[in-house]
């Protein structure tokens, strides 16, 4: 099964402290210009095709032409003369590709903090999310000797998904610590180490295993800074793959973001592309707050160009994937790709969806989301969480509370069924939101 996913990203390679917000000393313009207003066509030319082949572990091949801005774009259009694996390109169905002018956009000039690279094509490596995470991790370990990794099989085995491959040989067994199978205790140990000066990264072999560490995550990770009156900070990162995989069974297919979201004192982010994986990993490690970084089992082989320059993303910001006018689709993690596939179909049917990858699951970036709602007046949330008490449920409540006046219709929330993920492939497919459902929902909403 092929997923053609046009991805349009705009990334500001800002440090944690800078962001493109209205100056707080001046009254903000209302509403502020869309960060992705298309520039004149001649000033940039970037086209990338990203193909996701689910039948082979989501290998994505991206082609990118040079750009005069520090952006990575993916859209469906193919241009010749670029690196393409021939076998893949031949299978690309061109009529599903968006070729309309107003789709390929990314504006950069007005963004502060963006590095402009020059016109010559940079030979940027193509990496997948695994490699992006590893790069981010390695750069931070190099930068700060107090950064260490703890988890099951992270050392000699290189990580169950190979995210920490090679790090133990480079940094030693103590910095990349292979723990016994005791999630609650080694998470607590990481918290104790964080309180006394280290910056540990805890890997849950599968996010679901962190249910065993719930005591430590909720009581100590989240609350300790407060109950100690601010004396101890917990600069810990808890990361691991979660989400519904390929027939992994119910217990290995859990989405813990909904369980953790109520814990006060933690931040949650979900990465979805190699670019944001690396940026968020680095931001999470540098943050003094406890951060839970959610990765997805099926996205590890997703390939994309990763910039050479060092960059750190903002933990609290959402990402505008595709600007549009008719409807706002909010999503995160793997569902982003289902949404983008649905977006292709929608575009061909004449709709113009605006797709936002919320990235920050706790707290929500209400600015980006709010601006979008104010523009489109219709919201669809597409998530992989269960319907009950999921991220979508919180987001629905949040949008209703803050932007009720701007909504023309009730918010539509597409979530997974409240069902333990079955093993059978067909059943598993039906528990998760599929692109066809997204298309149907948008059509219904925009009627």
């Amino acid at each position, binding site marked *: 099964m092929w997923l053609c996913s046009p991805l349009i990203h705009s990334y500001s390679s800002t440090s944690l402290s800078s962001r493109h917000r209205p100056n707080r000393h001046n009254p903000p313009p209302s509403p502020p210009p869309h960060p992705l207003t298309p520039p004149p066509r001649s000033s940039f030319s970037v086209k990338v095709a990203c193909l996701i082949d689910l039948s082979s572990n989501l290998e994505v091949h991206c082609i990118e032409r040079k750009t005069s801005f520090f952006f990575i774009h993916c859209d469906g259009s193919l241009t010749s003369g670029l690196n393409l694996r021939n076998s893949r390109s031949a299978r690309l169905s061109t009529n599903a590709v968006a070729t309309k002018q107003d789709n390929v956009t990314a504006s950069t000039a007005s963004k502060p903090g963006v590095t402009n690279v020059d016109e010559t094509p940079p030979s940027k490596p193509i990496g997948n999310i695994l490699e992006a995470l590893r790069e981010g991790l390695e750069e931070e370990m190099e930068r700060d000797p107090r950064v260490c990794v703890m988890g099951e099989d992270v050392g000699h085995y290189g990580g169950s998904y190979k995210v920490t491959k090679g790090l133990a040989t480079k940094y030693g067994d103590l910095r990349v610590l292979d723990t016994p199978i005791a999630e609650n205790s080694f998470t*607590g140990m990481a918290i*104790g180490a964080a309180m006394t000066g280290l910056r540990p990264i805890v890997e849950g072999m599968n996010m679901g295993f962190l249910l065993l560490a719930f005591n430590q995550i909720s009581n100590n990770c989240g609350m300790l800074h407060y109950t100690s009156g601010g004396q101890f900070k917990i600069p810990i990162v808890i990361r691991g793959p979660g989400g519904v995989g390929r027939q992994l069974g119910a217990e290995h297919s859990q989405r813990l973001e909904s369980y953790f979201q109520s814990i006060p004192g933690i931040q949650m982010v979900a990465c979805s592309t190699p670019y944001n994986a690396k940026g968020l990993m680095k931001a999470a490690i540098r943050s003094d707050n406890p951060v839970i970084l959610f990765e997805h089992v099926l996205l590890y082989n997703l390939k994309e160009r990763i910039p050479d320059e060092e960059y750190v993303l903002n933990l609290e910001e959402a990402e505008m994937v595709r600007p549009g006018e008719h409807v706002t689709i909010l999503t995160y993690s793997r569902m982003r790709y289902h949404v983008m596939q649905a977006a292709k179909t929608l575009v061909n049917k004449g709709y113009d969806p605006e797709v936002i990858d919320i990235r920050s699951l706790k707290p929500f970036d209400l600015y980006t989301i709010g601006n979008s709602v104010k523009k489109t007046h219709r919201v669809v949330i597409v998530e992989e969480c269960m319907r009950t008490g999921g991220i979508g449920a919180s987001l629905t409540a949040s949008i209703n509370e803050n932007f009720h006046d701007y909504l023309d219709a009730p918010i539509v929330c597409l979530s997974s069924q409240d069902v333990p993920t079955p093993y059978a492939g067909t059943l598993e497919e039906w528990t998760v939101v599929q692109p066809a459902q997204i298309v149907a929902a948008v059509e219904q909403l925009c009627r």
Partner: protein
Amino acid sequence: MACSATTRIIHNPLAISSSRSAEKSDFSCKILSPSSFWGSASLGKKLLSVNKAISPISRRSATVVAVSDVVKEKKLKSSSSVSNLLITKEEGLVLYEDMVLGRAFEDMCAQMYYRGKMFGFVHLYNGQEAVSTGFIKLLKKEDCVVSTYRDHVHALSKGVPARQVMSELFGKTTGCCRGQGGSMHMFSKEHNVLGGFAFIGEGIPVATGAAFTSKYKREVLKEDCDEVTLAFFGDGTCNNGQFFECLNMAALWKLPIVFVVENNLWAIGMSHLRATSDPEIWKKGPAFGMPGVHVDGMDVLKVREVAIEAVGRARRGEGPTLVECETYRFRGHSLADPDELRDPAEKAHYATRDPITALKKYILENKLASEAELKAIEKKIDEVVEDSVEFADKSPVPARSQLLENVFADPRGFGIGPDGKYRCEDPKFTEGTAQV
């Protein structure tokens, strides 16, 4: 005092990993001769012959040797000379003062609670002072202490001023945790008190982490670090998974930590004998490859002897130790506990083994200090405790503006609001009235 026949630590001959099977079996049966080790040997023998739960008194009676008996015994043998004593005068006075502070403070807490100055769950440490004093007075300021909800005295022994602890209990902003922690969450960055945890067993991994940092600093960061961590917890915790998981990890990586079990025989209303298949907790140490020691926790000098050895081991990098201190709490589990289940005879029995009385007797009989000096210390402590109450009374309650502070170390974690600004920049946030 059991000074000449000092407590011996059961050393694990398998400190270096090697084949264990043959050695393990006879190791676990090794019991020291009764005279050298108060508590464990005869205790072990007695327990092995009994199947049913006995009331703690009869179980313990074989092992109880009051300090006074030992002192008499010693006096018969030889005239006590200063060189035979376990402590110097200064040390003795320090220990005495610390235990009296703990007792007086806890008694004052009870008074204040019943007067309505503090609320919630307050767990008092009366009777167990020997453990806290015996261990913590050996530590440096950089060493860490992790405790449970019965943590007031651990904080005081470590050096947190009584004023700060009392303020915290009153919920005032001058408390060590700004009033945000309460009785069960005493933290002090300055004195390296890492809490104060409400759920039992929760603090043990944190202590293991602090010990890990110490090892990391030494081996990765190449700093000159020999900091030791002490984890205090009770007999009920010794049936909890986190205890066993941490014993394993600490022994595996030879972390500089001492696990101190304050076995007061009761977990609220659950007798240790009813909850545990093998009540001898010290035995669980060798099962994981670390020495397990049993000591009379009502005798501060014995505890101190064991502590010197255990902390020394950790500091030298030889790894963790499990120390089971047999002790008793004179009051109920908390101030809300009617304490009906415990046998009054048992309580009376342990009251005769009050650690403060014992130390006082030791000091006086060995002429380390005079009665007047001890009285002066008691008076001084009374003043300290009174002053702390006064200070706490006069301190302000936390203002509304404190509500949203300290939730995140980096307050940007509250996110970006609809207006594009970070929530923490909203003036209502600093006032504490914002809805986050």
